[in-house]
């Protein structure tokens, strides 16, 4: 019997029978269209921008955070987080299903990967909050408050991180003061408890032979982008205001050369490897869900850089926009596709399988003088892409079939791209 199986395997490997064979299980849409344009009137009246969008783990609810992306000064303006359930009948794009009031601008948002009711947010004041939307009374489940442990600078990224104990998640927050903190949720006390603390300082940035880097200005490395690797739970990537792109390790034991500022946990220096620095702040990094070594990064230089974790120079740099790029994200279904939100208000979708370096699709949200600030693919329903902009609205786009259906040779092509060595 083993022999007959081996015979079949060999024949199959050589067979061309299914080469161009594709099956259509559903009606294919050939167009990219805007399904909904969600707005929260009072946020729009205050002129708030959408600073973050995140889909719940069920894929039905989109959570949107409001704030400002251009504020350099301390802001005392109130803002909110709104959620809409797109699968509910009677969806009103002008009326959110749930509005959470927040005392300051929200700068980061992330829905829990398993529990649909939990949303983590980072605020301009440096606080980190977790809301429980299933509670009717006070939706704030836990927060850091203004304790000695918390950040003092705006929190630009929050992410849920799997902890040692299986099934439990902690919240990782990163701020422009150069601190990356890992919190565990203690719902009994209503607090986020500091579990581990990392500090990034210029002097401890690793140097590599191919990149020349001179420490300049202040010694903190303000973190503006954070990405977790779905392949290696110990690795995380950090992008900074100064254009640095670093690979970091959770398990690093090196003490940080930074003042402790009253944190309860010892500060550690997590940086392990420095990639080629950019000329401006790095706004977004995302690891490929299909290849363990690939990630894409983008920032104010208008380019999207495709990197391998193994080398300092990028594998590929694509011009996305003539202005800033605020966020990039890989498609959850097509290994070669990623989307980028630009300062010109457009969302560009790139397909690395195409020969041309021009985008596969461009989505404009209409109107000049607005920027697309954030975007998120829906993992449960991969045709949906949510995009937030500075006009305070969130557009839900439905992507065409060719942007979402995995084609037969894609994984192989991605592997080839990853294995190139940059010149």
């Amino acid at each position: 019997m083993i022999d007959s199986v081996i015979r079949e395997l060999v024949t199959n490997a050589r067979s061309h029978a299914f080469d161009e064979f594709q099956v259509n299980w559903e009606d294919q849409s050939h167009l990219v269209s805007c399904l909904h344009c969600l707005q929260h009137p009072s946020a729009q009246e205050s002129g708030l921008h959408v600073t973050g969008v995140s889909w719940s783990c069920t894929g039905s609810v989109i959570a949107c955070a409001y704030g400002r992306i251009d504020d350099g000064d301390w802001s005392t303006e109130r803002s909110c987080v709104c959620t809409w359930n797109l699968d509910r009948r009677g969806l009103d794009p002008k009326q959110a299903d749930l509005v959470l009031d927040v005392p300051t601008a929200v700068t980061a948002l992330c829905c829990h990967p398993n529990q649909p009711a939990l949303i983590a947010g980072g605020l301009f004041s440096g606080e980190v909050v977790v809301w429980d939307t299933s509670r009717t009374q006070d939706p704030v489940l836990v927060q850091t408050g203004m304790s000695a442990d918390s950040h003092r600078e705006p929190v630009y990224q929050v992410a849920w991180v799997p902890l040692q104990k299986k099934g439990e998640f902690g919240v990782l927050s990163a701020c422009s003061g150069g601190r990356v903190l890992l919190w565990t949720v203690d719902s009994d006390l209503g607090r986020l408890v500091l579990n581990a603390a990392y500090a990034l300082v210029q002097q401890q940035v690793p140097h590599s032979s191919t990149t020349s880097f001179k420490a300049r200005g202040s010694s903190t490395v303000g973190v503006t982008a954070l990405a977790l690797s779905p392949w290696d739970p110990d690795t995380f990537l950090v992008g900074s205001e100064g254009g640095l792109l670093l690979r970091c390790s959770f398990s690093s034991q090196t003490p940080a050369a930074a003042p402790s500022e009253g944190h309860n946990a010892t500060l550690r220096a997590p940086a392990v490897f420095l990639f080629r620095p950019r000329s401006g702040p790095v706004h977004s990094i995302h690891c490929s869900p299909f290849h363990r070594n690939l990630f894409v990064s983008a920032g104010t230089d208008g380019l999207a850089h495709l990197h391998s974790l193994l080398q300092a120079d990028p594998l590929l740099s694509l011009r996305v926009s003539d202005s800033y790029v605020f966020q990039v994200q890989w498609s959850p279904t097509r290994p070669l596709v990623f989307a980028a939100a630009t300062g010109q208000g457009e969302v560009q979708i790139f397909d690395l399988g195409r020969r041309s370096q021009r985008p596969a699709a461009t989505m404009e949200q209409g109107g000049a003088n607005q920027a697309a600030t954030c975007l998120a693919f829906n993992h449960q329903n991969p045709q949906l892409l949510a995009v937030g902009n500075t006009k305070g609205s969130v557009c839900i786009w439905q992507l065409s079939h060719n942007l979402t259906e995995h084609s037969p040779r894609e994984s192989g092509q991605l592997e080839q791209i990853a294995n190139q060595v940059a010149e």
Partner: protein
Amino acid sequence: MIQSQNGVQGIIIVNSEGIPIKTTLDNASTVQYAGLIHQLVMKARSTVRDIDPQNDLTFLRIRSKKNEIMIAPDKDYFLIVIQNPSD
């Protein structure tokens, strides 16, 4: 020997009750494949025999976008091989 063939991603041997006895994949995937495929093979076999009681299932192949699952049944066990033919 099977492992060394082109594009083989995993091999599972399942006994007649659907319990995996040998595998090259991780535990969670093995348990998932074993349970789901056992049910499918039973259904395929009964389909073949209902159409013609003198006939019986000899081989089952499931081709999907990403790979192909081949199942060779036997009296005491099934042999499941997952292959990505384009590798």
